[in-house]
């Protein structure tokens, strides 16, 4: 486990140095780049493995579209999760929120309102859950782990209550069409476009706005952030709202992708999103992390899964290899980042 960040611990490449010393700050910036480069290296290695083992199936545009599409849903969730972890929190409820939003948005009553109804409901349910999380944590004084664990339980329960365990088929053509080949623009699936847009907005928000700097500051040292005049509680509320919003968007993408809503949706997303963020170099104790790293983490995971499936590996072998690759990726990254 990583140790909790000490106040002296440098936060991100974008945060102002606390002691005004220029030289460690510069080497830090270089280190962050090395970290991203090492992730790209891991991804490149995976592409080579995929290309060598399954040259026909792996190296074609269809497969690139497939990998990016499969990465979209969990990718959007991970962007929100990255913000929460950077601020020193955790959101265990993302999978449950995706499930709840996707079933609420696909009830017969919602589908009566068509495309807009489904999109609106998914986003509002996501925001609503995020709001509850945020209020409990920021103003109710609950530990994020517990508050979001409670949301996980009740969110899944409510999703089951709504569906009664049944699979809700989407009948709105406009929604279904978005997941099909006809609606690709210049070969890019709409889902991937949304993923890209969320990534860019997330990157800008983290690196180019006071909101981003505040998030990092709260995660680095909440007390120092409070003394510096940041409304820590409001900031935390916003962060869980942001995570909820990402879950709502992800739920809409999942509805498009699977053409249905099911209470089992988003199974173990919390672990996938946290793992992708950690692999991407986000510190679990907060104060440091990048959107680029997290997105690369998601792409690494999705590519691994894809290569395994194309090579027709057994489930047991897949799971063992996946664990080994996660450890290897983190070790490689550590080594390159510290030397």
């Amino acid at each position, binding site marked *: 486990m990583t140790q909790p960040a000490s106040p002296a611990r440098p936060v991100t490449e974008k945060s102002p140095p606390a002691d005004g010393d220029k030289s460690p700050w510069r080497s830090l910036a270089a280190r962050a780049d090395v970290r991203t480069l090492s992730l790209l290296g891991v991804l490149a290695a995976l592409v080579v493995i995929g290309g060598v083992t399954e040259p026909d199936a792996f190296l074609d545009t269809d497969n690139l579209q497939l990998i990016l599409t499969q990465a979209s849903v969990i990718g959007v969730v991970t962007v929100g999760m990255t913000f929460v972890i950077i601020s020193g929190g955790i959101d265990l409820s993302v999978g449950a929120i995706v499930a709840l939003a996707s079933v609420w948005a696909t009830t017969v009553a919602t589908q009566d309102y068509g495309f807009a109804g489904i999109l609106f409901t998914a986003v509002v349910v996501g925001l609503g859950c995020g709001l509850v999380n945020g209020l409990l944590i920021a103003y109710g004084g609950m530990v994020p782990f517990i508050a979001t664990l409670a949301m996980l339980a009740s969110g899944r329960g409510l999703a089951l209550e709504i569906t009664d*365990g049944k699979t809700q088929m989407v009948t709105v053509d406009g929604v279904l069409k978005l997941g099909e*080949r006809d609606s690709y623009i210049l070969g890019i699936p709409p889902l991937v476009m949304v993923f890209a847009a969320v990534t860019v907005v997330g990157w800008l928000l983290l690196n180019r706005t006071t909101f981003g700097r505040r998030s990092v500051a709260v995660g680095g040292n909440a007390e120092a952030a409070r003394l510096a005049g940041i409304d820590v509680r409001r900031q935390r509320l916003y962060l869980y709202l942001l995570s909820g919003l990402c879950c709502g968007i992800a739920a809409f993408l999942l509805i498009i992708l699977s*053409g249905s809503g099911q209470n089992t949706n988003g*199974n173990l997303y919390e672990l996938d999103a946290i793992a992708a963020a950690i692999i991407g170099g986000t510190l679990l104790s907060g104060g440091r992390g990048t959107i680029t790293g997290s997105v690369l983490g998601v792409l690494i995971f999705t590519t691994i899964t894809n290569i395994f*499936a194309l090579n027709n590996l057994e489930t047991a072998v897949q799971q063992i290899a996946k664990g080994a690759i996660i450890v290897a990726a983190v070790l490689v990254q550590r080594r390159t980042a510290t030397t």
Partner: protein
Amino acid sequence: MPEFTSRRGLLFGAAAVSAGAVLTGCTSNESKDDNSSEDNKQAVADDKPGKEVTIGFAGPQADHGWLNAINDNAKERAKKYKDVTLEATEGSNDTAAQIGQVETLINKKVDVLVILPADGKALTQVGLKAMKAGIPVVNLDRIFASAQAYRCWIGGDNYGMGLNAGHYIGEKLKGKKGAKVVELAGLDNLELTKQRTKGFDDALKNYPNIEKVARQAAEFTVESGQSKMSQLLQAQKNFDALWNHDDDQGVGALRAIKQAGRDDFMMVGGAGALSAFQEIKQDRGVLKATVLYPPTMAASAIDLARALGQGKGISGMAEFEIPASLTLYSAVVDKENVDQYMSTGFK
């Protein structure tokens, strides 16, 4: 018995025997039911109200379509009988919670228990406890570790499901040289998935022209079905048939097939969801058949429990008691017989 049979008697006897043979041959199973019950003068359970029976029903949480259908089937069947009172617990996937629920039912002194355990092995002890308390247990589908823990087991046939899917595909691809088959399995850490795959492989051994080229496991969810199927389609650009273990994940698989724009193979499903039946009936896509894992077994379990409670056998069988074990047949439903099964399809 007379020592010599007269010629007339012989003739008459022969005529009677052959007439009897013809009769039974013609009427087949319809008349058998009536005969056996009359012959044995055995009390068999029928629709007529009999002794009042309270049946305790404990099942897992209905978090997917098939389990939901199990609950519905049990409740509706119980409602059909005026002499049956059903005490159904709130379903739970938590072993400890389910044990508690069964113990409550034992304390309430229900006449018969129907238990679909969240985990068969883990609930064996409480099954034993009920049996020792004199409450006969009908064990539904997921089997207890000890035969002493139940009076009667009724459940589906996972191996048979694979077998029948394999034979159906085998017959359809008969004569096609170098035919390729792909399998989309269910949750791989469940034993039932292994059994289904074993049955499928065993059936395919009868057809040397067929080769299984790929197998990937999804997780019984729409999402995992879509994800795994889209990758299988990417890996296998050319194959003739697909067997998907579960119609729930099949919704996702069909979505992936549509998204990839593929229609060059036939697909067989599993379990018997309503959406699959409708797709088969419309006959527009790749889904041509599905192999049943019938949720109606819950209704039959109620029938068995009622017969147990009333101390009766079941009609159509010669025995005075209900059987100790009933493995249900995994019928293949295709366009020819789908109408017959439509009402049993679950959502």
